[in-house]
């Protein structure tokens, strides 16, 4: 059953009847979902529900056994991952994926580069526009003072923010943030929520998480996944009070 989107806003992403099968184990089972441009969507579900696998499928890291993934109307299911990123989707991994041996600025410059063909990179200088974008991102994530530190030496929270910065620096329209607050303290989590809010609108953001306090801080529409299947979709309030979600996910049903 695929949800036909009636909304008038242009459809950015449509996941249509996707199934992903690891030697018989259906990590994702005929799952469908749509995203509109500029939206903030949160994907929640218990561990092993298939949230990360869905991200892998969208970004092209895992090939779907069946079903289609369309971005701005074009099918992207079969494309290699770097092709999908160039079209405007970028993903942040659960474990921070900064390049440890490069400085924060170099990591961002790496992400900010538009013309990635190898002979373009032979010059020593970084083009002015990319340098400007790097400075801008440093401001957004608030790590301008740490720009020349090796990424490997950053604190855990800072690595997460730098990686969000890198995802933004690629100029991607759709940002997939996989548990961006993993391992963060309360005020860091709050600051991350504020950072994500500043990105919504110019970008479409799909956040994957299971920390309900963070989900509530974000607000926005929530989709619930369970054992690879689509369970429920609605506002944070609707989801909090939905008995089926509570039974499956929160493990208790309060009134």
């Amino acid at each position, binding site marked *: 059953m695929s949800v036909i989107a009636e909304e008038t806003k242009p459809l950015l992403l449509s996941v249509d009847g996707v199934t992903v099968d*690891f030697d018989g184990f259906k990590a994702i089972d005929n799952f469908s979902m749509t995203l509109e441009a500029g939206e903030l969507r949160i994907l929640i579900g218990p561990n092993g529900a298939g949230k990360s696998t869905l991200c892998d499928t969208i970004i092209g890291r895992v090939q779907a056994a069946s079903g289609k993934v369309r971005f701005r109307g074009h099918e992207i299911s079969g494309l290699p991952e770097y092709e999908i990123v160039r079209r405007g989707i970028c993903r942040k*991994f659960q474990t921070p994926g900064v390049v440890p041996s490069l400085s924060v600025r170099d990591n961002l410059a790496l992400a900010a580069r538009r013309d990635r063909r190898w002979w373009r990179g032979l010059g020593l200088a970084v083009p002015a526009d990319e340098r400007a974008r790097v400075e801008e991102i440093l401001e957004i994530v608030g790590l301008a003072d740490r720009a020349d530190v090796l990424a490997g030496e950053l604190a855990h929270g800072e690595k997460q923010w730098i990686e969000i910065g890198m995802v933004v620096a690629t100029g991607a329209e759709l940002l997939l943030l996989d548990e961006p607050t993993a391992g963060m303290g309360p005020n860091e989590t709050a600051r991350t929520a504020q950072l994500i809010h500043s990105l919504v609108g110019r970008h479409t953001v799909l956040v994957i998480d299971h920390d309900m306090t963070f989900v509530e801080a974000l607000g926005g529409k929530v989709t619930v996944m369970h054992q690879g299947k689509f369970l429920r979709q609605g506002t944070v309030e609707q989801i909090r009070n939905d008995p089926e979600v509570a039974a499956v996910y929160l493990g208790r049903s309060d009134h």
Partner: protein
Amino acid sequence: MLDLPLLIGQVFNGFSVASLVVLAALGLALSFGLMRVINMAHGEMLMLGGYLAYLTFLVVPGPLALLVAMPVAFVGAAAVGAVIEVSVIHRLSSRPLDTLLATWGTSLILQQGARDVFGPIGVSVTAPDWLNHSFAIASGPLAGLSLPATRLFILLVAVVVLAALGLFIAKSRIGLLVRAVNQDRMMAAASGINVRQVDLAVFCLGSGIAGLAGVVLALLGPVTPSVGQSYIVPAFLVVILGGLGSMVGTTIAALILGLVSALSQIFLDVSMSQVLVLVFVIVFLQFRPQGVIAVRSRALEE
């Protein structure tokens, strides 16, 4: 001139070469599947097996010396394997490429050691008489085809080792641990498996099998300090073709390469068929980069 006995003979030779290479490659595939590490000194375990067979033949007279030599070589090679694992491989297991170089250094030392102890000339290990004949087919379409008993014996040993290894991995307690670590090293460690000991056990098992293979190879080839080098590159190609350290994949890959080599030698000379085998592997990888058997490891390769 494609007469049938020559063709069937070559198919048999393909199986025979495959049985030799699979015995050499099994140990490599085991330790590679588990620790993502390639032991360049694996060829010297074969050499060690040959020398241990030579020593056993000196001590144990009579036709049964061969059967005594096999366990002796297994234990001897396993012990040396343990020493290498603890001293060199374990320290570097997080850096697979560096391990490859360090174990190459180990192989040079083992070769020169054998040259100093047993002399550069190599030692003589002759097959017992009960092996020195062949089953010739005199009449019918396959007239002229003869199957040497030694090669049949080696095929038998390969089949027995594969079966025993399969049972060991599938049924035994350690086998369970090996499969767990093989599938998801971090998860296995998290659930209390002593990954260190499993690595060591598997490495010894792999080296032991190579020692056993050394005895069997001594029936058909020389026992000299550099004998390991002539078997190691084909064994590597089998591991690459076989896919991520899977036993079944390695066996199938050994069969494929054995047949490609044997059948191509009908038309080409040995040198050209050796080049053809490499080209075959590179072309094969164009279609199945993950190798014959794609062991879907849950450990996300980040």
